[in-house]
């Protein structure tokens, strides 16, 4: 099975993720989009790992999944706190750090 199909899938997922991160207003959806991007990378890593018969890629993928779980935990906690304080998670309205 040629590797290109995996790469296309991966690219598609990544672009979807990027679009989600840049365009969506909802903070939860932005976090989900980041997960899409990470998993696009995971697909790449696993595909090349299988192709090159090198387990390192899969190990990387496992690490990425573990760290992504932690990241989503922290991210959702932040979103939850923002929601509680400001009643809403519209990212356009969150600009307290404006210079």
């Amino acid at each position, binding site marked *: 099975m040629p590797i290109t199909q995996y790469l296309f899938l991966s690219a598609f997922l990544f672009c979807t993720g*990027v679009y989600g*991160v*840049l*365009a969506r207003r909802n903070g939860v959806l*932005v976090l989900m989009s980041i997960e899409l991007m990470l998993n696009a990378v995971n697909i790449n890593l696993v595909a090349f790992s299988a192709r090159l018969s090198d387990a390192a890629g899969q190990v990387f993928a496992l690490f990425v999944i573990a760290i992504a779980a932690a990241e989503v935990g922290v991210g959702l906690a932040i979103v939850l706190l923002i929601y509680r304080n400001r009643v809403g998670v519209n*990212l*356009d309205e*969150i*600009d*307290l*750090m*404006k*210079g």
Partner: protein
Amino acid sequence: MAEKAWLIPLLPALSYFIILLFGKKMPKGGSESGIIAVGTSFVLALIVAAQWIKDEHIVDQHLTWWSNGKVHITLGQHVDGLTAMMFVVVTFVSLMVHIYSTGYMHGDERFTHFFAALSLFTASMLFMVLADNLLQLMIGWELVGLCSFMLIGHWFEEKNNSSAALKAFFTTRTGDVGLMLGIITLFFAAGQHFSIQLINKMALEHEISHGLLLAGALLLFLGVMGKSAQVPLHIWLPDAMAGPTPVSALIHAATMVVAGVYLVARVYGVFWEGFSIGHGGLNWMAFIAGLTMVLTAALAFVQDDIKRVLAYSTVSQLGYMVAALSVGAWTAGVFHLFTHAFFKALLFLGSGSVIHAVHSNNMSEMGGLKKYMPQTYWTFVIGTLALAGIFPLAGFWSKDEILLGATKNGYPYIFVLGLIGAFMTACYMGRCVILTFHGEYRGHGHPHESPRSMTVPLLLLAIPSALIGLINAPGVLKFAHWVRFEVPGVEFEPPEHKFAVPLATFSFLVAVAGLAVAYWVFYLKTAPNKGAFERAPLRTVKHVLVEKYYLDALFVGGVVGAIKGPIARAAYWINQNVIDGVVNAVGVGAKLVGRFTYDVIDQKGVDGIVNGIGVGASETGGVLRLVQSGRVQQYALMLFAAVGLLGLALILFT
């Protein structure tokens, strides 16, 4: 015993501290400590001398004081005939003076202080004599000068006395500059050694160049001129008579002033080679000594103060000693030092006895004292005859040897000047005796003979004054054998000459003629033209003598005055115009530089940089703050854009 010679200076030194600390509490005010210490030193000195005579063993020991690299500064003792002789002379005269002072200084308010200084003086002189190296010698030399200063100014309440002390100190210090430079010169010339024996040896064996030796000898001789009162640095000695008379006897006649003569005798190798004494003719030392002999003897004629007569006589006799050394008659010079110490101490103590009786120094207030104080009179006469050089008293033998050396070694002018000096010496001493002891008493009160503590030393000094010269009489010649200049390992001996009867007779007749003239002019007063000195041209001569050749005026006016007058004014002008100008210029310059620094560097440069940084940061911040929108997605956009651009660049450029 000779190895223990260091005890001789040590005892008086200890005595000095004992008197200083406990003197006032002692029953006799500290004088007993001084007498015991000096007495013991005298006995030790006699033992050292006896041992020297017996086995003639030179002691030359030293221990290292401190080292610096290869230079070892040592402290040592050198005992030979000259040292032993000096020990005997110094301790004997000092002992006599100590005993005499208990009477003379009785009731003085600083009696204890006086004896402390006498002890220190004796110790310093003995320390100097003991020295085996020039540095140690200089330490003793300076200590001696310090004690002289203390003792001349003993009665410092009077301005004259303290000025005399200062004058003595400054004048000798002037010479001491030369001494120090000379010692430094010889130190380097001898390969960084101070040892006197080594320097003598190297000088005599021509291991030091003649130029260096000449420089060293000239510089050392400057010190000798100051200490041993050679023309023109003799001016301090007559003024030093301001001190108590026993001090004059001890310091300014018998011991301290001969330190210079001793130095020449001790470092004779340097002087012999440096001044080429062996070749005869004219040398600097002989020139100065010749002048000193005659010029100062002439001054003794016009003095009224009995001590000043003796002071000028001392200067003149010191001239004889230096002259003897300068013509190569080493033994004669040292022998004259030896005999002179006794009879000059005797004369000074005798004059002190007279002053004690009449309470005045002036001979115009004396006269006719012969019948009041016979012991003083007869001892004084013995001293006078010895000084005048009358056969067979001490001065005859030593003076004759000097004249003999001068003729045989090719110094005829020293011979002539010596004869003139001998004539003058006899004449002014005759005048002194006649004015003091003969004729009618012209003073106040009733003079009386001095107490036994004063007359006994006179008698004890009269004996050697009369007889000591015989030890170097022809056929005996012990002195020349015992005290001689020798450097171990070097074949050198100053020339010795046999006693010449015609010469001795002639010099004897000259001395008798001097006394006869004195008798004729001052006793009989029948000399024709006795008013001659009140008329021109002799009046001018007298005037010049009274003014001491205007040397004092020259020094005060020429040296001190020059410093006070033009030099001070020039210094003031330089101060006002040059130094102040420089200072002011520096001030103005500093102000300009400061203004420039403030205006340009500080205000424009430094402040500009500081403000520029601030403004730059502020402006940059103003621009960058537009980027900081606070919106996360905008940041993410920029991040992805950047990644995209970098990815594009990666693809395009590889």
